[in-house]
């Protein structure tokens, strides 16, 4: 017996009707003609003078600037923020304690509904073994995130984090994205700040920036209608920062958003960073639509040229973010090297294991060598860092600061005050 097949049709504005499909990069020659030439010159002058650019400026750059200008300006900001020729990365491992999720994001190929085939929750022993391997390889961080499991509450996570902290004090738990923390608060029926306080007390050291997707409600209603809203996502990060923890920020673009909505996302992040100074870094990547549950909503993957444009623009616009991370997982190692001259100063994690974007992999020691080779090949110095972007590397002369979460908290406050 064959199941009846229904072909899902893409609603207007999605799939091949997405603004990402009809969007056209400006022709390079346009940037040399008036009035664009003068407009770009004005914005370039601001960036060169270390003045903040407006959202309108950012949109103009997105829609009218040539890639060479974006690359040049992003590179300029990168060197101003980091005069030393250093590119950082962290030896880490992604552990996804569960893939059980009730949020049903149509772009996610990783999650399983409760009780579905392949749904899992990792045993504590399995997690411990993975962290032990990471520690033995000199890993400094485990990135733990997973599905929104209907029964795994804050207590479960606190016990896990405390246990890991006790066994492996040198490995930081960089865990629980904003939507997961929000989910825990709902399960517990108590305020987000209380959940954060408990997690911090248990040993949570920093919070990843995942789950931001596009911080625009129109887009979220299409791609992740059950997920934490834009305001909630930002509010969780605000409370994380207020609790003295630092977090990172992300953007997943190239789905159903417009250019203006990409800028809106960046504006929301920059505004919150002005308020708290708690973000360590920003990373963006393009939606990877192969094999996802609601594939019909998604246009073909946007090309590396678009990625380079958005990534360079983010370095120029996010003037209060210290670090911009490349996305070698989505762009490949060669493009990642190019991004080191288009605004990125961080290679992210070596991800000794990664399950969400790729199929399950094991230890790839060559990934450390591979990362170092790309950085050195760009004429730059690879240096390992910790979760708070302190350089923790024998080859580095300077002091490692911040060296832990509480250093980082002070650091964050100082940044926030000066911003």
């Amino acid at each position, binding site marked *: 017996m064959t199941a009846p097949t229904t072909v899902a049709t893409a609603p207007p504005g999605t799939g091949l009707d997405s603004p990402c499909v009809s969007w*056209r*990069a*400006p*022709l*390079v*020659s346009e940037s*040399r003609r008036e009035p664009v*030439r003068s407009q770009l*010159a004005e914005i*370039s002058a601001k960036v060169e003078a270390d003045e903040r650019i407006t959202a309108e400026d950012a949109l103009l750059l997105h829609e009218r600037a*040539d*890639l*060479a200008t974006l*690359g*040049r300006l992003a*590179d300029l900001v990168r060197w101003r923020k980091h005069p030393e020729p250093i590119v950082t990365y962290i030896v880490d491992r992604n552990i996804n304690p569960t893939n059980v999720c009730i949020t049903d994001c149509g772009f996610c190929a990783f999650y399983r509904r409760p009780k579905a085939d392949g749904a899992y929750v990792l045993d504590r022993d399995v997690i411990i073994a993975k962290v032990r391997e990471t520690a033995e390889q000199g890993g400094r961080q485990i990135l733990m995130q997973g599905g929104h499991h209907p029964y795994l509450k804050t207590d479960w996570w606190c016990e896990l984090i405390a246990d890991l902290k006790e066994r492996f004090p040198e490995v930081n738990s960089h865990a629980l994205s904003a939507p997961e923390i929000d989910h825990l608060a709902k399960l517990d029926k108590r305020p987000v700040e209380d959940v954060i306080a408990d997690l911090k007390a248990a040993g949570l050291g920093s919070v990843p920036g995942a789950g931001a997707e596009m911080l625009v409600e129109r887009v979220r209603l299409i791609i992740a209608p059950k997920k934490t809203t834009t305001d909630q996502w930002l509010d969780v990060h605000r409370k994380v920062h207020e609790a003295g923890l630092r977090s990172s920020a992300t953007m997943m673009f190239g789905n159903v958003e417009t250019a203006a909505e990409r800028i809106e996302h960046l504006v929301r992040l920059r505004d919150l960073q002005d308020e708290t100074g708690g973000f360590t870094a920003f990373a963006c990547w393009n939606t990877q639509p192969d094999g996802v549950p609601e594939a019909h909503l998604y246009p*073909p993957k*946007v*090309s*590396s*040229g*678009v*990625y*380079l444009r958005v990534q360079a623009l983010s370095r120029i616009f996010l003037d209060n973010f210290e670090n911009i991370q490349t996305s070698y997982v989505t*762009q*490949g190692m*060669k*493009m990642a*090297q*190019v991004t*080191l*001259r288009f605004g990125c100063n961080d290679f992210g994690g070596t991800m000794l294991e990664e399950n969400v974007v790729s199929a399950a992999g094991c230890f790839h020691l060559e990934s450390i060598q591979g990362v170092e*080779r*790309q950085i050195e*090949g*760009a*004429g730059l110095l690879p240096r390992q860092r910790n979760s708070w972007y302190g350089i923790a590397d024998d080859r580095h002369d300077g002091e490692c600061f911040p060296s832990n979460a509480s250093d980082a908290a002070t650091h964050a406050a100082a940044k926030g005050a000066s911003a």
Partner: protein
Amino acid sequence: MSQSGLRERAKRAGLGRIAEKIFAEERLTREDGVELYATPELHVLGELANHVRERWHGDLAFFNVNQHINYTNLCNKFCKFCSFDRLPGQEGAYQMTPDEVAEKIREHLHEPVTEVHMVGGVWPKIPYEYYLDVLRAVKAARPEIHIKAFTMVELDQIAKVAKKPMPQVLDELREAGLGSCPGGGAEVFAERIHREGYRQKISGDEWLSLARTVHEAGLRSNCTMLHGHIETAEERVDHHDKLRSLQDETGGFQTYIPLSFHADNNEWTHMSKGPTALAELREIAVSRLMLDNIPHIKAYWILMELGIAQTCLSFGADDVDGTVVEERIYHDAGATTPQETAREELIQAIRDAGRIPVERDTLYNVVWSENPEAMPEGTAISDIAAHSASV
């Protein structure tokens, strides 16, 4: 086009003198080339190359719909950088019959392929007739296809086995269907590297002399350099200089294609990992500036990855090669790019790089352009370039 910003940036980058020459369309010296290879100011270098690229081609970026056939991997040259060559009886050794070659052509009759790029190993036991038969078989299978075949290294062998002078051989090959010659086999002209890496192969001087003969016979060809192994900046610049000197004489080169060394499964694996992505961008930029008389600079996406080729379109390149159905030589050496890119994907990649996609045939006649209104039938590429520069 305003040069004031770039002029100022070049000055600050210590490249002011070279930039002035570029703006004045003066030829760069070999010393200038070496300086450009050494500058840390990658973005200024890219902008200068871009300036020249736009002087030639405006916003246009070319691609074609092509097919590769490697008719044999039998080879007696033992080049240390090669992962493709085999001896008879060795595992994987093959030689296609003319009919098998024709079958490869027939497999793609439903696709709008305009060119077949056909190269292979050098094997002295292959008779002269074979090469003629292969050309005839391709033409019989698809009469309108352009055959770009046989590097200078293969031509040298073909003339030997034919026991005829090269001009006569070229006439006969052309009669059988040869349309133009690819640019491979040049490697690096420097004798030091020739001795070290590919001593059985024709020397740089012989390669250049054969290319002259090909051009004199009225055939166009491309030129290449294999980079990212043991060559120095001086050797690269000498290579460029020799190419442009010959081009001054004949005008027969259409396109320069830097070929990235790939390090898997060959005798140079331990010498180099091949050029980095940034080194590829730099090679594109420097060659655009040095080769002031060669119209096209190609970012061969299948060697680089499509994203790098897109970036190259802002660093001096104006061509990304084609859809390439089946490539074996670089994939044996570890290239992991998909072997076929849909025409639509190439077009989108070019658009995303801010350029106007133009499908060309081998001789750079326009087959299709993004802007049909800008392209009345029979438009020559120079007309579109002028149009796109003036819009």
